[in-house]
C-alpha cells in the first residue's frame, strides 16, 4: 500500500468512474422525476421544464404515503417482536436447563436453511384458514421471531462472563430479572444489529405481501410500487420515478446516519 504520487490522479479517475456507475440509476431516477412525462416520452431527457409537479401528483393521485405508513407500521411491529421473542428464546438456550435443549437448538438452527420462498404454499393456506388475509397481522405474525435472530443473540449472550450470573444468583435475582437487568443491556449492540436487520428484512418483503394483501389500506410499499407500475399509471414515468424517489430517500437517510455508528462499530472491532 505504498502511495506513489504519480498514480493519484488515475486513482481518482477510477473512483469517480465507479461512483458515477453506482449513483447513475439514482441520479437518473431523480432527474426524470423532475421532468414532465410528455418530455420523457419524447426522449427529451435534457428538458429544462423542471418542477416538483410529479411529486405533488404522486402524493395526490396514488396511495404512496399510505404505503409508506403501512410499511413503517409492519416493519416496526416485526422488529419489536423479534427483539423480544428472539432474545427470550436465546436466553433459554444459554441460561436455562431443560430436557431436549440441544435437540431444539439444532432444529432451530436447521430452519435457517429453509427459504421462506419454498414454504409459501402451506403458509398461504394457513393464513387463509386463520382469516388473516389482507391485514397488517398477516405480514407480522409469521415473522414474530426468527431462527437467525435467536442464533445471533445466543452467540452474544454466551459472551456474558459467568461471574455475572454467579453474582446474580448470590443476589437472588430470578431469570426474568437477570434477563432484563443484565442480559439485555450487556448485549445491546447485538440487539441494535438485530433491530436494523429485522426492520430492513421486513421492509423489503415482496412476495409474501403480494400474495396476502389486496387493498391499499394494508399494502406495504414494495407492492405499492408494483401496483403503481402495473396499473393505469404505466408509462407515466415522471410520477413513477417520483414515487420511487419518495420511497428510497428515507432509507438512504437512515443508512447514512446509521453508517456513522456502523463505522464506529467496525473500528471498535478492529482495535480490540
Amino acid at each position, binding site marked *: 500500500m505504498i502511495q506513489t504520487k504519480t498514480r493519484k490522479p488515475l486513482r481518482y479517475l477510477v473512483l469517480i468512474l465507479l461512483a458515477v456507475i453506482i449513483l447513475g440509476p439514482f441520479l*437518473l431516477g431523480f432527474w426524470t422525476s423532475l421532468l414532465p412525462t410528455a418530455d420523457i416520452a419524447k426522449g427529451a*431527457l435534457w428538458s429544462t421544464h423542471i418542477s416538483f409537479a410529479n411529486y405533488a401528483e404522486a402524493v395526490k393521485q396514488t396511495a404512496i404515503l399510505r404505503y409508506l405508513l403501512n410499511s413503517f407500521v409492519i416493519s416496526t411491529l416485526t422488529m419489536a417482536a423479534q427483539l423480544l421473542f428472539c432474545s427470550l*428464546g436465546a436466553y433459554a*438456550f444459554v441460561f436455562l436447563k431443560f430436557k431436549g435443549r440441544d435437540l431444539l437448538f439444532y432444529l432451530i438452527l436447521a430452519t435457517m436453511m429453509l427459504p421462506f420462498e419454498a414454504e409459501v*404454499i*402451506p403458509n398461504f393456506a394457513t393464513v387463509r384458514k386463520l382469516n388473516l388475509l389482507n391485514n397488517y397481522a398477516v405480514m407480522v405474525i409469521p415473522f414474530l421471531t426468527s*431462527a437467525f435472530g435467536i442464533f445471533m443473540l445466543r452467540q452474544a449472550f454466551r459472551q456474558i462472563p459467568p461471574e455475572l450470573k454467579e453474582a446474580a444468583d448470590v443476589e437472588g435475582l430470578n431469570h426474568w430479572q437477570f434477563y432484563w437487568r443484565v442480559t439485555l443491556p450487556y448485549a445491546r*449492540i*447485538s440487539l441494535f444489529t438485530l433491530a436494523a436487520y429485522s426492520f430492513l428484512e421486513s421492509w423489503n418483503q415482496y412476495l409474501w405481501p403480494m400474495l396476502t394483501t389486496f387493498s391499499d389500506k394494508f399494502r406495504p410499499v414494495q*407492492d405499492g410500487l408494483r401496483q403503481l407500475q402495473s396499473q393505469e399509471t404505466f408509462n407515466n414515468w415522471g410520477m413513477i420515478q417520483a414515487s420511487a424517489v419518495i420511497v428510497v430517500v428515507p432509507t438512504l437517510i437512515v443508512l447514512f446516519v446509521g453508517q456513522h455508528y456502523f463505522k464506529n462499530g467496525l473500528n471498535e472491532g478492529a482495535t480490540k
Partner: protein
Amino acid sequence: MQEGITPASKPGLKPKALPQSGAKGFNLHVNDKWYALAFLGPSLLILGVFVFYPMLRTLYLSLFLTDNVGRPTVFIGLQNYVNLLTSSAYQASLQATAVYVIGVVAFTLILGLLLAQMAVRKLAGIQWFRTIFSATMGVSVSVAAIFWLFIFSPSVGLFDQIGNLLHLPLVQWLTTPGPAMIAVIISTVWMNLGFTFLILFGALQMVPQPLYEAAAIEGASPSYQFFHVTIPMISPTLFFTSTVTLIGAFKSFGLIDLMTAGGPNNATNLMVYQVYRDAFLNGNYGLASAESVILAVIIALFTLLQFKFLEKRVTY
C-alpha cells in the same frame, strides 16, 4: 463487524460456538422447565406453525395431485418430480436460474472487490466514495426495478438513447431473451453492491499492514500483493459473501416480477417465479410443491456448506 447493520453481522458471528450448544461455564439451576416454556414457547409456536409445518406439508403435497385450492386429492408418489425433471420447460427454468446465479455472484464479487480495494486506500475525500459505494444498501427491490426499468426501457431509456447517439442498432432489452437476462443480472448486481462492498471493505481494513510492507520490501508488485496477500487474507469473507449472494440469487423474485415477469419467452423464468406461477396463477399446487422442495434442497445444501466452512475456520 459484529456490530454491523443488517446481514453485515453474519460473518462477524463468533462461529466458535457454532457446533456445540449448551452453556458450559454457567451454573444452571436443575429444573427450569417452566421458565423454558415461557421464554421459548412463543418462538417455538411461530417457528412450528410457519416454518416446520409448512416444510413437512410442502413435502407431503409434492406427492399428490391437488384441487384448485391446494388440497391433496390423488397420491401419485414421485410422479410430480419425474414430470418436472423430464419437462423441457422446467429444465429451461433451472438453466436460466443457473445462468442468473452464476452471473450475479461473479459480477457482484468482482465489482464489490474492486470497489472495496479502491476505497480502502487513504486519499483525501475517500470517505465520500465509501459512502457512495455503500448507497445501494438503502435500495429496496422495487425501487431498483423501477430505476432500471427506465434505463432499459425502449427508445426513452438511457441505453437506447446512447445507442441511438452512436448509431448502434436498437436493442429491445426487456423483450429479447438474451438481453433481458443481462438486464436483470445488471440490476441485481447493482442492488447487491452496497452490501457486498461494506462486507469486503471491512475485511480489507483488517488485513495487517505489516504484511504489505514486508511484501513491498521483498519487491512484490501490487498485483502480486493483491493475489498473494489480500485474497488469501480475506478468503473467509469472500467465501461468506459468495454464499450469501448465491443464496439470495436463488431466491430472487421481486426484480423478476417487476422487470420481466419471467419473460420474454420464459427466458428469465427463475425457480421462485416458476413456483409462484404454478401455484398461484395455474393452481397446480402439487407440482409447485415439488418445485419448492427442489429449491429448498438446493438452498439448504449451500447453507450447510457455509456452516461447515465457518465451523472449520474455527479449528485453526
